[in-house]
């Protein structure tokens, strides 16, 4: 008993060190999406080309929903990579978030259009339902419209390889788990 007491400070130190060590590897900016493994919310909106869009238009295969805006510098940075992804056959839907539609159309004309269609969310209301905190954000949805992954920040080849590809591989060819 007496000997055990001698070791108490060492044990306390070890426990604390373990906790702090674990704390070092946590990213305080990482916020898990509340939407992961839950259905993409219902919505009705207009597309950038003026057609009505709803949740049903996004279903049918694995797809990305990319939240972007012309006021967002990181969106400009990731746009070239989105073009590349679209060329390799990835379905990308755009969510034009709190933006001016005319400016958004000009942006697509000058920078290329990787999007199957663009949902106009000028009020940011759909963004709130998705749990968007800013742009760019990219959601991976499966064929049934279940959100499988949410990534905050600009997409690039490394993020695609490390975050998206493993999830897509798990989903299988028909886009269902």
């Amino acid at each position, binding site marked *: 008993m007496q000997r055990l007491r001698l070791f108490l400070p060492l044990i306390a130190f070890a426990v604390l060190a373990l906790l702090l060590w674990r704390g070092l590897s946590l990213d305080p900016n990482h*916020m898990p999406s509340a939407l992961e493994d839950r259905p993409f919310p219902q919505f009705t909106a207009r597309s950038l080309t003026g057609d009505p869009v709803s949740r049903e238009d996004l279903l049918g295969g694995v797809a990305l929903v990319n939240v972007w805006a012309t006021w967002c510098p990181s969106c400009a940075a990731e746009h070239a990579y989105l073009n590349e992804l679209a060329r390799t056959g990835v379905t990308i839907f755009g969510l034009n978030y709190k933006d001016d539609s005319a400016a958004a159309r000009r942006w697509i004309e000058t920078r290329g259009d990787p999007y199957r269609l663009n949902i106009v969310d000028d009020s*940011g209301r759909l*963004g709130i339902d998705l749990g*968007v*905190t*800013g742009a760019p954000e990219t959601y991976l949805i499966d064929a049934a419209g279940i959100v499988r992954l949410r990534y905050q920040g600009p997409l690039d080849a490394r993020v695609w390889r490390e975050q998206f590809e493993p999830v897509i591989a798990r989903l299988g060819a028909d886009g269902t788990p």
Partner: protein
Amino acid sequence: MRRLLILLVLLGGPLHAAVETFDFATEEQRQRYLEFAQELRCPKCQNQNLADSNAPIAEDLRLELHRLLLDGKSDEEIVDFMVTRYGEYVLYEPRLEAKTALLWGAPVLMLGVGLLVLAGIVRRARRAGVARATALSDAERRRLEELLDEDARQG
């Protein structure tokens, strides 16, 4: 000049949260709005609540909060609305659940441990005190009696 500065500082205090002006049907709704804006965390910014943050998303959420209150939503419905969209992260006061039990229980637990340690220390000190009090040598006892006699004579 100095007085003016002091006046400005005093006036500036309560204004920090007033970004937009919202109309409410009742005073009670206004109070609940202010409470929620204090207790809900801005999902974009690490350490600010909705009231203090001027991030666009915080602005949108204040608007949404106002709408929910006017719709007559209950406190639970509003908290659920925020949590289903932004996760537990947005609650500055986490709900009591299995995974937050330790968080809520830790203060009580630590108080208990502290009390146990204190009781141990007191018990040991008391035992040591009793031991010391009974362990007077004959010489000490004589000296004590002398002192007491002296005291009695003087008193």
